[in-house]
């Protein structure tokens, strides 16, 4: 039937049906009967005539003013028409944030394990695998979270006191976050610097590194080939991306928060891991004849080996110390006190 040929009678029938089919079965018949009666009365009285003789356009106007079947059915429905309601929503969002963070960490762990086992080769292979695992994790974990909370909503949020927003303890409120002023210019500069480093490191690795003049020869100890062989390239990239995210968050928030500080602690621990892996390789590389031959002077090679190891160990201890200090301060004052030194990392 063409919509232009629908009579007022048919419009009302269809409207009542559209509303009632969206209601629970036990309400359907009763509401349909009442709605039908009320609509007919309204239409006939407003048009001063029998519904059969009323212009369908007039009827359509009255039905439109009543509201769409979805809206009217939602008002009749004893249960709210949402998947996760206001009672559970804060807990759901907290869970979702945790799920997203866990997905990132899990994906990074999988990629690291696969790269060490040799299942992944090359930077792009690692990046693609990371993306693939991350998307899988987010889909799976987030879907489970949505299903669990939707189920809790159907069971009745009020029956779950530990998740209910109505039951909370004022003494467990988190401390007020004191704003630690940040320099937008400094943070922006750091974002650009990290972005440049990322591009440089991945697209122009031949320019990355230092040339150390030893006995008139050039020693490139961070050449592209060595980067690929020695350094955990994927981890370094992940770390830089995380550092980029942290600085973007910092710029967006405009202030240091406890969450960002914990993020910094994570970055610090990540840096310790990376330098640990570098040290592991460096430890053996500096003792090889190839290294001594490259340096040219066995005594200097030995000294350089000791210096490189010492510098690496020093860096690890410093970063670890900073991370532990941050954890201590966060635990001492709930992560509220700003200390600018924390902005130095990442």
């Amino acid at each position, binding site marked *: 039937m063409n919509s232009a040929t629908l009579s007022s009678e048919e419009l009302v029938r269809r409207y009542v049906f559209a509303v009632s089919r969206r209601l629970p079965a036990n309400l359907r018949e009763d509401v349909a009967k*009442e709605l039908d*009666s*009320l609509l007919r009365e309204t239409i006939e009285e407003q048009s001063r005539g029998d519904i059969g003789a009323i212009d369908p356009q007039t009827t359509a106007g009255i039905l439109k003013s*009543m*509201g769409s079947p979805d809206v*009217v059915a939602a*008002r*009749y429905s004893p249960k709210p028409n949402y998947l996760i309601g206001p009672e559970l929503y804060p807990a759901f969002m907290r869970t979702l944030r945790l799920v997203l963070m866990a997905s990132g960490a899990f994906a990074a762990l999988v990629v690291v394990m696969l790269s060490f086992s040799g299942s992944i080769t090359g930077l792009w292979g690692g990046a693609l695998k990371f993306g693939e695992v991350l998307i899988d994790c987010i889909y799976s974990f987030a879907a489970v979270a949505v299903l669990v909370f939707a189920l809790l909503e159907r069971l009745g949020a009020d029956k779950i006191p530990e998740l209910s927003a109505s039951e909370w303890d004022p003494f467990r409120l988190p401390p007020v976050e004191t704003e630690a002023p940040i320099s937008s210019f400094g943070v922006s500069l750091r974002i650009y610097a990290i972005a440049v480093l990322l591009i440089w490191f991945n697209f122009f690795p031949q320019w990355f590194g230092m040339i150390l003049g030893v006995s008139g020869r050039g020693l490139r100890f961070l050449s592209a080939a060595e980067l690929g062989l020695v350094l955990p390239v994927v981890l370094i990239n992940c770390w830089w991306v995380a550092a980029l995210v942290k600085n973007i968050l910092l710029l967006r928030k405009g202030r240091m928060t406890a969450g960002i500080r914990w993020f910094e602690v994570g970055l610090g621990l990540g840096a310790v891991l990376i330098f640990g892996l570098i040290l592991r390789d460096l430890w053996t590389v500096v003792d090889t004849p190839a290294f001594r031959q490259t340096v040219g002077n066995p005594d200097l090679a030995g000294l350089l080996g000791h210096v490189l190891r010492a510098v690496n160990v020093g860096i690890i201890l410093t970063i670890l110390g900073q991370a532990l200090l941050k954890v201590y301060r966060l635990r001492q004052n709930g992560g509220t006190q700003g200390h600018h030194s924390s902005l130095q990392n990442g």
Partner: protein
Amino acid sequence: MSGTQSELTESLGLELRRGVVVLAALSQLREEQYGYSLKKSLAERGMPIDEGTLYPLLRRLETQELLQSDWRVDSGRPRRYYSLTTKGKQMLEELSEEWNRLALVMGDLLS
């Protein structure tokens, strides 16, 4: 970007009126009425409430045992008549008192 001033006024006005819809409906149900007659009665007294809000509200108040209803055929048409229950009458009294107190406070605040 929020709406214009008139849209904002309309939206806030609607929010203000939404709070008194229950009291308004209960006040007109001291004598039994069916949905459409109640809507007309409220509109005539300066409290127009759209059907999409009023009719579901009556069902909700019935579920809360503030109203009772029964079907009757009147002028050849089946109609559902609503009236206050004992609990509904008590609620109307309490809400009326609250409203009077609020009106005094608001009058004082706005003067």
